[in-house]
């Protein structure tokens, strides 16, 4: 089937081009005759959004503090039991952080690319959650031939220079928060030294049991994740440095989450420290000198709707699922050391549903974007959600019972098609944000909800 539309006339008059896709995709926003949404209603739904952010980042911070404390305990007494507890704390911290990712890509405090939001909050996302990461920079890895790599942060005494381009040297005599922050993304986007995934690599080590070129046998098995030996933290060379690294990285993570959470605080507003300032701006409540920071409701909604679309389509469906399926390679699997990718997918997706439906942890947080939609739009969104719920549920249960995600993406695996159709549905759901925005009187095109680059690689 090939459909062709020819539009004659000035292209400048053509906006929000719609397509009739194949089995889904964008559709023309039909005017349901519903009345326009009032300013009060807009503020109401934005308040719900801000309340979910506050609740979710509060949980993410508390879980990161629990991780920090488990790591402190492990550092003081590096036993198998304490290592297992630290790993459990990491997995738990990912649950609450995963649902916050929907607040990305919307010019918000976690990753705004410009303006006062960037200046005030510093866009800590890349320092907390950067991925994929080149683990060779952090610690030794074992390649397919059994050779161990060296020349990394852990085994370098003195000054370390990352590989890549335009890298600058950092003194790593002592592994501190500052040194790790200076090394993060230094010399290239994959030179990740901080955040969840750096901690993950140190706790688990490599999980190289499948890739597209060679079979390695380092950690082999459909239900095997990385298996870093405890001796790496006790008797091996640089054991203390690994513990210091975990300590510093978890402290930095807590600090960054603290700063991000501060933006959403509802009980006070201080645009000098940043506390409550972003929330105030988003809801148009700042006054005096700060009033200039207020974000018009339509601009706020536009950023949020476009960000939600980009997140579920480009970040989750494309970067985290499609690339993994089609490479297929271990390094394209999101949480590849712990094999926790099935949870990343489930929580990232849940975050989208939370914000769309005004829900957190299963209970309503206020008036939702969804509640303002026409019955028709609700129904088509619900169909997609029902389908994705089933598919993501299957990815999750198969990962727990039979095959981790890195096996599910292998050619010939019985669940590979399910992963494929799950991300197709997610793309279609992302395109629905064009319709959601339309209901709020905001014109978005599919271009706006697709493929915006999540990081600025030119910095």
């Amino acid at each position: 089937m090939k459909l062709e539309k020819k539009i004659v006339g000035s292209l400048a008059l053509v906006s929000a081009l719609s397509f009739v896709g194949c089995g889904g995709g964008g559709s023309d926003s039909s005017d349901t005759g519903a009345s326009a949404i009032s300013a009060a209603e807009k503020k109401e739904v934005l308040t719900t959004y801000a309340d979910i952010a506050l609740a979710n980042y509060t949980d993410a911070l508390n879980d990161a503090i629990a991780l920090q404390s488990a790591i402190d305990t492990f550092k003081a007494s590096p036993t198998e039991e304490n290592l297992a507890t630290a790993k459990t704390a990491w997995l738990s911290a990912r649950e609450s952080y995963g649902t916050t990712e929907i607040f990305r890509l919307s010019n918000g405090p976690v990753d705004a690319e410009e303006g006062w939001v960037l200046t005030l909050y510093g866009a800590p996302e890349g320092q907390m959650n950067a991925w994929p990461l080149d683990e060779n920079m952090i610690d030794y890895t074992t390649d397919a031939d059994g050779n161990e790599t060296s020349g990394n942060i852990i085994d370098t005494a003195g000054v370390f220079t990352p590989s890549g381009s335009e890298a600058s040297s950092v003194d790593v005599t002592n592994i501190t928060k500052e040194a790790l922050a200076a090394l993060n993304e230094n010399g290239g986007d994959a030179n990740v030294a901080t955040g969840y995934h750096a901690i993950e690599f140190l706790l688990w080590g490599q999980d190289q049991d499948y890739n597209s070129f060679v079979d390695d046998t380092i950690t082999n098995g459909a239900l095997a994740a990385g298996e870093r030996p405890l001796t790496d933290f006790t008797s091996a060379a640089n054991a203390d440095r690994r513990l210091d690294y975990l300590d510093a990285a978890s402290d930095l993570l807590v600090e960054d989450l603290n700063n991000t959470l501060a933006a959403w605080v509802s009980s006070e507003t201080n645009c000098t420290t940043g506390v409550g300032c972003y929330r105030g701006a988003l809801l148009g409540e700042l006054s005096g000198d700060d009033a200039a920071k207020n974000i018009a409701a339509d601009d706020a909604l536009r950023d949020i709707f476009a960000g939600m679309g980009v997140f579920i389509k480009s970040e989750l469906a494309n970067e985290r699922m499609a690339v993994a399926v089609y490479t297929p390679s271990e390094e394209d699997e999101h949480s590849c050391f712990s094999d926790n990718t099935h949870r990343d997918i489930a929580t990232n997706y849940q975050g989208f549903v939370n914000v769309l439906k005004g829900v957190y942890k299963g209970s309503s947080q206020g008036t939702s974007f969804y509640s303002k939609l026409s019955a028709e739009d609700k129904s088509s969104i619900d169909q997609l959600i029902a389908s994705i719920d089933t598919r993501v549920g299957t990815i999750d249960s198969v990962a727990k019972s039979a095959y981790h995600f890195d096996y599910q993406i292998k050619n010939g695996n019985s669940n590979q098609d399910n992963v494929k159709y799950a991300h197709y549905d997610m793309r279609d759901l992302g395109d629905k944000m064009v319709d959601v925005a339309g209901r709020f009187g905001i014109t978005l095109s599919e271009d706006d909800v697709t493929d915006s680059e999540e990081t600025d690689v030119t910095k």
Partner: protein
Amino acid sequence: MPRVTTTLTLTGFLFAACSSDRATQDTTAIYTQDKSKHVFTKAVKLSHEDEDYRILGKSFFKIPWVEAPSATTARDGLGPLFSANTCIHCHPHNGAGIALDKDGNIHRSLVMRLSIPSEKKLNNDLMLRNGFIPEPTYGGQLSFNGVSDVKYEGSVALSYVERKGAFEDGETYTLHEPHYELKNLQYGAIQQDANVAPHIALALIGLGAIEDIAVEEILKNEDIDDKDKDGISGKANWVYNPETNTTALGRFTWKAASATVKHQSANAAHNDMGLSNPLYPSDNCTDKQEECLKAPKGRGGFDLPMERLDAITYYLKTLKIPAQRRIGGFEKGQELFDELGCVKCHVDSFTTEKGVEIHPYSDFLLHDMGERLGDGHTIFKAEANEFRTPPLWGIGLYEKVSGELNLLHDGRAKSISEAILWHGGEAQAQKEAFRQLDKKQRETLLEFLKGI
């Protein structure tokens, strides 16, 4: 140059293709209304399966490659000598490269092509394949970086001398004449008669559509001996395409030295990132660079296997073209553009083989631009002072997309006006005509250019 007249109707063809046969899909000439810095990254609407393939290509375009040997397997094999570890580094947001980084050092998206004079009888095979003779020690391009045990090749000091000039109405302008000095050469002296040609990364706009223009449509504008005596020649570059092992019309790069998007992608992977691939099977080392030759190789054959090279190509060919922004004095500016004769080389309209009308503002032919602009680099049929007319579509968005505006082959022009004022050779008369416009007319012309 014989002028092929066309009417300028803005017609966008929109397709939603559902065929799984990627080869027959027309997805090359679809426009985006986006005006953000991400405007050059928008893609046409594809079926889910094709979208997956496009995303795969994008991942190889954007995610950094790493040094071998590594635990990483899909993007292993960077270097041993390289300038950048991702494609996107030299094409920020898919836009044009920048000359200087924020510290005032030369940016990696401005590469140095190296060559030595060719003896017609010698090196025949090299000439047939490369179109030029690489410098014996450093090869065809200076690498700014090396992997762990391999020394980088060298660095470059770039400085500008200000050249003042004035428009006919008295307003003065400043041009920035670049001066390059190779420094810190790690492999000994460079051959005395070597030529160093700085080339900046081009914006990635409408590549699929350019590839879809029929050869004869481009050749229509060729006028090597200026038979119509309008001072404009226009010469096709005929290049060796390693994929087909044939001679083909060059369409891409400053000197029109690449025949297809795939050819150019493979060439850039090899020269800029040190990635071996089916079209350029070796690592980027000369036989005088032992550490480079001995460095660990990526696993499993080519660093960039055919399927992934194809995916990158597909990603690039399915990018949308920015729609024209016809505001202000656009129409009047367009008249000036035609009257001055700019349009003789910057041809405003082509119809692709798929019947899609596009407005690249290029004839994709080589023109002599004069001594002041010449870079000394000869490649295939392109002479030292000859350049392919660069397409102008999207030029008004370059600065937003890349963060800087650096026009011409080495990025020396910081504004469209400066770029025009550097024109010489065949475009001397047009440049002079521009210099004689009054301020209002110049602004109108620039308004038009920023809208295309």
